[in-house]
């Protein structure tokens, strides 16, 4: 049943003879069906009731409500209807006194809580109290236009007009639209007079393209096409976006050249309310490139430099600048400047994520220090975090260890509230992220053996052979997803347990091995995503499920909520899958998400991407509500950049390219910590870093050089190979026992077949010929020690 929007409300309708029958019956039914009490009031002249007759059909209508004793405090809406009702009610036997109905109307106008609905000839009743409508916008029957002018009202040629708490309608013919407007206003819980209109001074960010610059005023068009005008002041500063470790670059001497149409700019400004609207005065401008239309992050070395700086930051924070790499000193929790907090936990996933970042940094830079940090990290994971289960022939990973006082207490189950006392799939998945990325470089058979053991764990204990997919948690003793000790995590599946295999390790594992088993597992997970996650009840995907794939809308913080970045992550990875096992429905869903998400998850005024929102709108809402805040998290920006880059790179067009640039612009302007190094966790909607609580840290469970490094690595790959059609050189370091088939696979990501070829290979500094250009593979020689391979990839000319 539909919600009754006027439940508990009272609508009073004035009555007299010569009413319009259809109109009155319409109000009776319409307001009643919305749950309102409908009351008819007239001047009873001391009688118990009076019976009136309609204008058209002379229909009798008996009224028992006396307007002279009406209690306005119990009335929410007072309607003066069409016909001759108003004229009859303004009769007064004493020409020096107002008629009782006029007095009632005057009192009602004195209370902005009461909606006054006046239609057709109804405004006649206000003639003796013209001050109540003076200067207000109204409509009325054409015959009354002169009357309302004389009353000082502002006649407006519309069927229905709202002026704060006064709703007017043209004629009885328009009673439906008139009633609808009244219902909307009452349901919204406030007469128009109390609608909040900001009129104070505030500061905010505008992101947009310059459309003009004249006499110190910039005209901008925001990402969603709204015009904004911004004035420069004598104290407006301007800078260029800069990379980590680069000094401040002043741009204020180049404004005339930079403020040319089409150039993208961020404006931090002050909004002053005056003369009925806002004047925006710029205080700080940030330009994305030295020349109009240039984007610094599209320079060939932007992301490569950035991953180098990130690698140095985490190297320094964990082990010192150039001291020995000793993981006994590793700590998960790092403060803003990289210093260690008084906390002695080493989490498996944060080490694994750092191994991922360092491996990626080596691949782009060839800096062997990064490789060393990665290799030692993988070895540490093997020695301290791994549980080899001989009975089941599987491997699993501890949540972490507590190394206080030199001891080593295993933290077997997750220490996080979401996953407490359970082994969450999410943590096991991310335990593989770093080792798998490192395996791509070295082919270390010990790493592959652990990956295979963990995959057997997934197949044996997390997989649901009947309904497909992977459960999100298993219990620590029996390794069952159905154990009652799991509580709200019992027999559940979620976005991470199904969808995070691909981005965290599985695509990389397929790239490293070419093993079709992994392609098949990818296909299974993507088929499940396409089948179960898009739902008709919301434009956002469903992220939590029961075993039978019915939605779970009750779980802990998630409830019926959407993580914007998960939607984008699906689009990004579906497009990667298009280069492994393509399906029309993968591309269709990725494109659909890419097209609709800007309106659902991005900030059209300031740029950037939001965090968690309600999947569904409550009645009367037009905007999906933020669950906790309107901050923007670094990793969700990453998902947007990669999703739109790959959508654009795989034939998606200019609109996706624009979104990729806008997303990268926001990230590059606001997420880089130029003071301390590294990347901020969250920024406020206007781009200022949010530095309170856990969001101040640089090493928490997902921060630790994972997403930021992944962005540097893949943005380089997509920008150069797919968008700019420029070559890219990568570094590898195969061990003598690396890769059982002695084949090094150098494709940096899942790329469309035929788009990129391996142009040349260098082995330990010398040209090397044993490679397959099309397959992007290198046949490795026998060697006694690790060899350094440089692989030069080049786009194939059309």
């Amino acid at each position, binding site marked *: 049943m539909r919600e009754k929007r006027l439940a508990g409300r009272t609508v009073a309708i004035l009555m007299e003879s010569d009413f319009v029958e259809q109109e009155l019956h319409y109000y009776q039914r319409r307001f009643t069906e919305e749950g309102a009490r409908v009351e008819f009031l007239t001047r009873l002249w001391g009688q118990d009731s009076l019976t009136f007759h309609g204008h058209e059909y002379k229909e009798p209508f008996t009224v028992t409500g006396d307007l002279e004793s009406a209690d306005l405090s119990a009335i929410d809406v007072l309607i003066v209807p069409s016909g001759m009702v108003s004229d009859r009610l303004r009769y007064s036997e004493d020409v020096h006194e107002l008629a009782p109905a006029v007095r009632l109307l005057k009192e009602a106008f004195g209370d902005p809580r009461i909606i006054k609905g006046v239609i057709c000839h109804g405004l006649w009743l206000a003639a003796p109290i013209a001050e109540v409508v003076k200067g207000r916008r109204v409509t009325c029957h054409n015959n009354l236009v002169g009357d309302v002018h004389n009353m000082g009202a502002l006649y407006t040629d519309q069927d229905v007009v709202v002026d704060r708490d006064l709703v007017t309608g043209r004629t009885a013919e328009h009673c439906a639209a008139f009633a609808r407007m009244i219902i909307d206003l009452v349901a919204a819980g406030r007469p128009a007079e109390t609608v909040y209109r900001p009129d104070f001074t505030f500061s905010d960010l505008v992101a947009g393209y310059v459309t003009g610059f004249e006499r110190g005023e910039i005209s901008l068009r925001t990402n969603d096409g709204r015009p904004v005008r911004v004035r420069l002041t004598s104290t407006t500063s301007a800078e260029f976006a800069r990379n980590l470790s680069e000094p401040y670059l002043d741009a204020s001497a180049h404004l005339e050249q930079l403020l040319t149409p089409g150039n993208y700019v961020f404006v931090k400004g002050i909004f002053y309310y005056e003369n009925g609207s806002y004047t925006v005065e710029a205080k700080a401008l940030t330009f994305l490139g030295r020349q109009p239309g240039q984007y610094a992050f599209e320079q060939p070395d932007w992301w490569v430099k950035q991953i180098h700086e990130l690698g140095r930051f985490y190297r320094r924070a964990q082990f010192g600048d150039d001291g020995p790499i000793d993981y006994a000193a590793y700590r998960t929790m790092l403060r803003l400047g990289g210093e260690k907090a008084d906390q002695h936990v080493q989490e498996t996933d944060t080490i694994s994520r750092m191994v991922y970042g360092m491996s990626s940094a080596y691949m782009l830079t060839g800096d062997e220090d990064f490789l060393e940090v990665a290799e030692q990290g993988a070895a540490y994971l093997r*020695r*301290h*975090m*791994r*549980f*080899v*289960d*001989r*009975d*089941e022939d599987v491997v699993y990973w*501890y949540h972490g*260890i*507590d190394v*206080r*006082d030199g*001891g*080593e*207490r*295993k*933290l*077997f*189950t997750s220490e996080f509230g979401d996953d407490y006392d359970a082994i969450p799939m999410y943590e096991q998945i991310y335990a593989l992220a770093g080792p798998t990325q490192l395996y791509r470089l070295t082919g270390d058979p010990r790493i592959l053996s652990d990956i295979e053991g963990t995959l057997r764990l997934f197949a044996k204990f997390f997989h649901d052979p009947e309904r497909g997919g992977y459960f999100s948690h298993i219990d*620590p*003793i*029996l390794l069952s997803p159905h154990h009652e000790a799991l509580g709200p995590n019992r027999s559940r599946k979620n976005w991470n347990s199904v969808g995070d295999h691909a981005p965290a390790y599985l695509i990389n594992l397929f790239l490293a091995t070419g093993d079709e088993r992994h392609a098949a597992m990818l296909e299974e997970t993507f088929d499940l995503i396409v089948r179960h996650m898009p739902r008709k009840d919301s434009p956002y995907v469903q992220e939590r499920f029961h075993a039978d794939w019915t939605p779970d809308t009750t779980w802990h913080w998630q409830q019926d909520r959407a993580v914007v970045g998960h939607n984008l992550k699906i689009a990004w990875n579906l497009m990667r899958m298009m280069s492994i096992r393509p399906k029309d429905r993968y591309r269709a869903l990725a494109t659909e998400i890419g097209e609709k998400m800007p309106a659902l998850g991005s900030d059209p005024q300031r740029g950037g991407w939001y965090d968690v929102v309600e999947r569904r709108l409550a009645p009367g809402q037009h905007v999906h509500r933020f669950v906790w805040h309107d901050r923007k998290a670094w990793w969700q920006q990453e998902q947007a950049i990669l999703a739109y880059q790959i959508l654009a790179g795989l034939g998606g067009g200019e609109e996706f390219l624009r979104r990729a640039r806008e997303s990268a612009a926001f990230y590059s302007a606001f997420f880089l910590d130029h003071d301390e190094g590294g990347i901020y966790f969250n920024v406020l909607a206007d781009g200022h870093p949010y530095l309170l609580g856990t969001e101040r840290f640089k090493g928490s469970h997902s921060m630790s050089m994972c997403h930021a490094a992944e962005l540097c690595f893949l943005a380089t790959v997509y920008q150069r190979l797919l968008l700019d059609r420029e070559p890219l050189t990568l570094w590898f370091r195969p061990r003598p026992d690396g890769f059982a088939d002695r084949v090094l696979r150098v494709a940096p990501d899942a790329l469309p077949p035929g788009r990129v070829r391996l142009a040349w290979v260098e082995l330990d500094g010398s040209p090397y010929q044993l490679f397959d250009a099309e397959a992007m593979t290198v046949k490795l020689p026998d060697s006694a020690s690790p060899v350094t391979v440089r692989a030069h990839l080049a786009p194939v000319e059309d």
Partner: protein
Amino acid sequence: MSFTMKMNVEGDTATIRLAGELDGSSAPDLNDLVTQAVGRQVGRLVLLLDELTYMSSAGVRCLVFAHQKLPRGSQITLVGTKPEVAETIRLTGFDRSIVMR
């Protein structure tokens, strides 16, 4: 060979004697027992294993989980561990967290 277990708590120390083969099916029973010890928040858990001929990985999981749940600084000591059982434990890395005698 069947599996038997017995716990004795004295002061701050819980002593558990395990005998026979601790396979996957008997692990929940051991878990119940160590959960009792955890419930009493003992500072020392001593396992007498000289009569234990086999310990499944599920058995090790019970001990690891118990160690996580015991108060910080509490100690688990294994006495009389046979080489086969010690190897199972070594493969889980748990040997780094306990005393084996």
